[in-house]
């Protein structure tokens, strides 16, 4: 921990609430996030001693200055009372592998040092955050005795495709808890859980990068902490090129999910059914920005994968699955369809190979990307005219397939 950071923590001594905002070049949006946090804490927790920690990855665009600069001059203008304790702000660089997980580690350290009762972490590129998010993420921990609050958003039907096609159905089938956004990015958690996270030796792995979200969620479930979710409304974040991040994001998230499967295999093998988790917040429909998708490009990438990577996939997939993939790669763009049971079989086969370590893991996960793009293309094509509810039903049916095929995973796991 940086010395100046420790000095600031020592000066504050202790806090009831800690809110962490990891950042890297988010000067455009972080001001709004910080204002929402300040207003939310003043409105819903005026008597609590709260601290905001900005854990920054060395921004060059004035992100840190923006966090220090932002103030709410008159709380009456946003219908909140003046807080009894003014919010303390700490802006600190994090150390270790550059990534979101390392930034979170610094936030956990601050939570442990200040003995915070309730904590929340928020993405710094959020454009749709409101002060109510503070109540929704913190109150279940602060007053209801929960240890972990996952977010529940209104999202565009084509948003969150790694979540919808892999992470949510797989986590649900494995651990039996229906947490809809296990890698949402905005979470609430208890100081006790933050302390537990800190004790884990994972900070040199993909958990230190994009793998942190699913790691936090899985640990909270698997270690028996009290878990719930809160409906936050729309999730709209800063526009960026998602294609540029897909490779590392995909491999780090999936690596984290598969890695946890190895650790918690005795647990998930025993889970036979799934349960809903308590949900807070008022559910309402939200208007969302349209999403444009290039299906042709994704199908093209899938076909190229079938042409060139089949030799590598053949070490993971059965002959039957490989033939199935070849046959769908020959379909025309109009007829292209990626069946759900084929997708689930692939996810389970790759999980088994990852566990056995018979193929270099980084290569294995990167080689999944064309398959994933094929699945996403099929999903977008199938749901082009579907409503959000119909899409949700489709995701629910995929989850059911993951659950039904779990014996296939259990059987193949130790072979």
């Amino acid at each position: 921990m940086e010395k100046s950071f420790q000095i600031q923590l020592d000066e504050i001594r202790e806090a009831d609430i800690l809110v962490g905002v990891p950042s890297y070049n988010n000067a455009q949006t972080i001001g709004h996030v910080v204002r929402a946090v300040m207003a939310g804490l003043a409105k819903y927790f005026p008597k609590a001693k709260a601290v905001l920690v900005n854990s920054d990855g060395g921004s060059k665009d004035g992100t840190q200055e923006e966090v220090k600069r932002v103030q709410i001059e008159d709380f009456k203008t946003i219908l909140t009372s003046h807080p009894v304790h003014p919010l303390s702000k700490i802006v600190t660089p994090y150390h270790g592998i550059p990534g979101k997980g390392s930034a979170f580690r610094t936030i956990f350290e601050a939570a442990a040092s200040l003995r915070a009762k309730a904590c929340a972490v928020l993405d710094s590129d959020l454009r749709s955050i409101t002060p109510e998010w503070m109540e929704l993420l913190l109150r279940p921990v602060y007053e209801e005795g929960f240890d972990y609050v996952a977010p529940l958003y209104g999202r565009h039907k084509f948003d969150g495709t790694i979540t919808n096609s892999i992470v949510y159905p797989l986590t649900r089938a494995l651990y039996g808890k229906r947490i809809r956004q296990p890698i949402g990015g905005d979470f609430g958690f208890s100081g006790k859980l933050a302390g537990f996270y800190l004790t884990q030796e994972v900070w040199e792995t993909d958990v230190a990068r994009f793998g942190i979200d699913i790691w936090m969620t899985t640990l909270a479930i698997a270690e028996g902490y009290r878990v719930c979710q809160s409906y936050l409304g729309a999730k709209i974040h800063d526009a960026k090129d998602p294609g540029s991040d897909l490779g590392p994001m995909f491999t780090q998230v999936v690596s984290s999910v598969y890695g946890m499967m190895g650790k918690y295999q005795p647990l998930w093998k025993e889970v036979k059914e799934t349960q809903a988790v308590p949900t807070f917040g008022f559910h309402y429909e939200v208007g969302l920005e349209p999403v444009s998708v290039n299906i042709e490009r994704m199908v093209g990438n899938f076909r190229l994968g079938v042409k060139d990577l089949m030799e590598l996939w053949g070490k993971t997939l059965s002959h039957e699955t490989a033939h199935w993939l070849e046959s769908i790669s020959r379909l025309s763009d109009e007829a292209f369809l990626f069946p759900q049971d084929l997708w689930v079989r692939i996810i389970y086969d790759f999980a088994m190979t990852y566990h056995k370590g018979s193929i270099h893991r980084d290569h294995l996960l990167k080689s999944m990307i064309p398959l994933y793009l094929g699945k996403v293309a099929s999903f977008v094509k199938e749901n082009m005219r579907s409503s959000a509810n119909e899409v949700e039903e489709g995701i629910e049916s995929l989850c059911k397939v993951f659950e039904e095929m779990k014996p296939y995973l259990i059987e193949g796991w130790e072979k």
Partner: protein
Amino acid sequence: MGEVWREVIVDSFNKFLGKVATFLPNLLAMVTILIIGFLIAWIVKKFIFRFLKAIQLDKVSERWGLAEELSKRGLTYSPAILLSRFFYWVIVLITLIMGINALDVPATQNFIAHFFNYLPHLFAAILILIVGYLIALFLGQATLIAAVNAQMESAKILSRAVRWFIIILSLTMTLYHLGIAEKVIVAAFSITFGGIILALAIAFGWGGRELARDFLERLYKRKEKGKEGPDHLSHV
């Protein structure tokens, strides 16, 4: 005359007995060396095999694609068996040479001295070859996956080019290390790769002018098209 004859025979018989008496301990030494050597070779083979199994060499080589490559080339033994047998035969070879050396035959002395001087180079060369081959397999596969994810139609060609470049480079290094036609090897390597680069430059710069223009135009148009409607999918 008979006396002289008898002396000659006795003398030559004594000389023969003297030589046998000198040679016999050497022969016994050779037999002893061979027995001990074979025994050590067998123990080392067993030890190395168990050690390689313990460090999961077979699993690692499977991960790196070496096991598959060996199997493609008809070698059905696992890398742990192959390596343990390799060391067995190296020790057997050394034992044989030491055995011959024990016979104290002047003709073999020089050869043996050379052999032992050369042995470290031989090991280093084999190591370069194995490591080079593993790196070639690994980087070839990494290139293939990266090129497919970058949607390059020629992903397989690129991957093979990377793989063969590293194999040839490691072969060159191996031969250079062994001191086999050093100058010829370096010259051949330079000429080959210089030639390939020149051929590519000419092919793309002259022969493929139209193709290059077409490629750049398509690339530019695709970028323009991309500007109009990029994906806005948020994957997580």
